């Protein structure tokens, strides 16, 4: 029985423990490092030219779809005048590729506005 026992000296024990700890921590460390060195998750959007937007930049970045859906329901269901129209958007945000698609692709969101509404 005694012959089968693996006997490690202190130095080897420390090395084994260090390797084990490194393996365990690898996933966490990898994401931390990758996140730190990766380029910004936000795609670079160029400045739209034209008049100021209907809402401020921060609101539009995070909630433009809330606004569009609100206006959509108001126009169709309550017969109100449209506060903003998609065709007004394209006056400043001239290209769908450079504005809409760029972000939506980066965050992997599928949307179908342009199946019906024309946007160049």
């Amino acid at each position, binding site marked *: 029985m005694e012959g089968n026992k693996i006997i490690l000296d202190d130095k080897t024990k420390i090395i084994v423990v260090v390797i084990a700890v490194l393996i365990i921590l690898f996933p966490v460390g990898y994401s931390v490092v990758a996140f730190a060195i990766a380029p910004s998750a936000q795609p670079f959007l160029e400045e739209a030219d034209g008049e100021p937007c209907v809402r401020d930049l921060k609101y539009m970045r995070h909630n433009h779809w809330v606004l569009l859906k609100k206006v*959509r329901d108001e*126009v*169709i*269901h*309550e*017969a109100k*005048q*449209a506060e903003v129209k998609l*065709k007004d958007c394209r006056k400043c945000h001239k290209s769908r590729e450079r504005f809409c698609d760029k972000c939506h692709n980066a965050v992997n969101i599928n949307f*179908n506005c342009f*199946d*019906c*509404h*024309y946007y160049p």
Partner: protein
Amino acid sequence: MKGIGFATAAAGLGFSFPLLRALASSGAASHGEGETLSTQLGMVVDIKKCLDENVRRACASACHLEHNVPEIPDTAEEIKWIWSEDYKTVFPDQAHARTADMYKDKPVLVLCNQCAKPACAKVCITGATFKRESDGIVMIDMHRCVGCRFCIAACPYGARSFNFRDPRPALARKGTLREDYPTRVKGAVEKCTFCVERLREGREPACVEAVKQVPGGEGALTFGDLSDPDSEVSRLLREKHTICRRVGLGFGPNVFYIV
């Protein structure tokens, strides 16, 4: 005592069974006769003036151009908002063996009747089709339509069309794709909307505007608010004898025909 007991029991049942509740208050419920909207837009069509093919063609082409309606030659898949049909098909309960030659087998201009109690809205499973209270237009919220086509089966006037294919290639082929009006997608149902987008800007529907340009078309179509007694449509309806399509069905069509 027994009667009261029964009534209470029936009311109790009614609360748990919507169908029973609907039966108990049949007719007078939400879609009852007495209920009228504060505004109900409607149209009066002069059949005589619309016998002229140019007038009818002008309406249809103006409308279909305005709303990105593709021209599909296959009648099984065609899409139409305003079109012509035989007198006997349009008025099956009016046409008879001795119908005047003037109308017999003659085409009549037809479009969505914007019914007071639309069957299409009742059967819509997603609430995409609804009767808009502010102007009485039967609207389709294209964002909600799932293309089940129940409404097509329900509409007795055949006013609805289904997009069997993407309309854009057909429009692009003809070069009539308009950028300022949305197209539809494959699998959506569409119909006449009395040109809501034009009404919003204070303009008349495209067909009404188009007939005015055609010689002899003046007054072929009159559009206005039926609930306003001073409107042109109300005046016409008071003065002339008009008929409606399939009144007996009880959907309350809002397109009237001067015979």
